[in-house]
């Protein structure tokens, strides 16, 4: 009676020059073709990275303004998760009212895009509906305010920035892993 835990030896390994090698050249040629495609893909990924398609490059840099140019925002349209970046607000003299600049920043920027630090520190930070309103004391214009961002999770996030009496700036940022 045959033992169920054993099997007779079958010479199943393909031979080359009478030696059991197990070569599969047809498969190997397909693999080499796949490797060439992969190497090409690696080069494409690096080129895209250098161009900024995955953030931190020429393509990802963006700038937008209100119609009257009272506020201009420099930002990255593509961010990388867990990587710091800076969003810069340029205020025109027309945005200064009574030696103050009042700007609303939505939660999309504060929470989703991970605003860590705002520089210079605002004189007043007040919670508003859907965001935070900052009030800066201004002694001379034009003025620049920098917001340090560090998004934690990949995704697409919309934000809104608005100065008092001006049209809002609405933009979307893509955060890649």
């Amino acid at each position, binding site marked *: 009676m045959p033992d169920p835990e054993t099997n007779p030896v079958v010479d199943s390994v393909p031979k*080359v*020059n009478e*030696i059991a*090698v*197990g*070569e*599969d*050249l047809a*498969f*190997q040629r397909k*693999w*080499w073709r796949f*490797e060439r495609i*992969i*190497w090409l893909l690696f080069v494409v990924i690096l080129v895209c990275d250098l161009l900024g398609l995955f953030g931190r490059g020429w393509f990802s840099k963006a700038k937008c303004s209100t119609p009257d140019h009272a506020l201009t925002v420099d930002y990255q349209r593509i961010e990388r998760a*867990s990587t710091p970046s800076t969003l810069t607000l340029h205020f025109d003299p027309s945005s200064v009212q009574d030696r103050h600049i009042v700007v609303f920043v939505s939660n999309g920027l504060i929470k989703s895009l991970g605003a860590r630090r705002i520089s210079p520190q605002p004189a007043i930070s007040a919670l508003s509906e859907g965001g935070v309103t900052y009030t800066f004391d201004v002694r001379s214009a034009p003025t620049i305010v920098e917001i340090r961002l560090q998004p934690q*999770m990949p995704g697409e996030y919309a934000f809104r920035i608005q100065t008092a009496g001006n049209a809002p700036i609405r933009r979307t940022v893509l955060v890649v892993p």
Partner: protein
Amino acid sequence: MAIFIIARAAFGYMFLVLMVRVVGRRPGKQLTPFEFVLIFYLGGLTLTGMVGSEGSLTNAITQIITVALCHYVLSYLRFRFTTFAKILDGTPLVLMEKSTWRTETLKRVNIQDDDVMHVARQQGIKDLSGIKTAVLESFGEITIVPSRVDEEEKSDPPSSSQ
């Protein structure tokens, strides 16, 4: 989120498996300093992306378990399906047979005749004519079958082995 910690670990492992497979096999039983740099550098860079700023023991344990599980699944699929084993390891490749070089294979795997002769010398073979078949194994080692085995078989009558 915990799911991203696990997903990062699984992706890191799978990506490294692909990278090491695509970078290709080099002949030799031991890693050369050149390959040490590659292995440690790839490992270190992958670790940065896998761990990120979350260095808790819980994360480390879940990621180690994830990598172990991925390894087990790949090993099982490799055992179960021949095609998967070929994808993961490749197949042995004949570099030389019947005094003829397989030039296409040598070119594709970046191996020179010197590499084959280096292994042959370790077996006491003086020149390339002493090699019957040279095979690049799937784990990267070159195996030499010397032609003197044939000669010895021919010179010894069948009765002499009894």
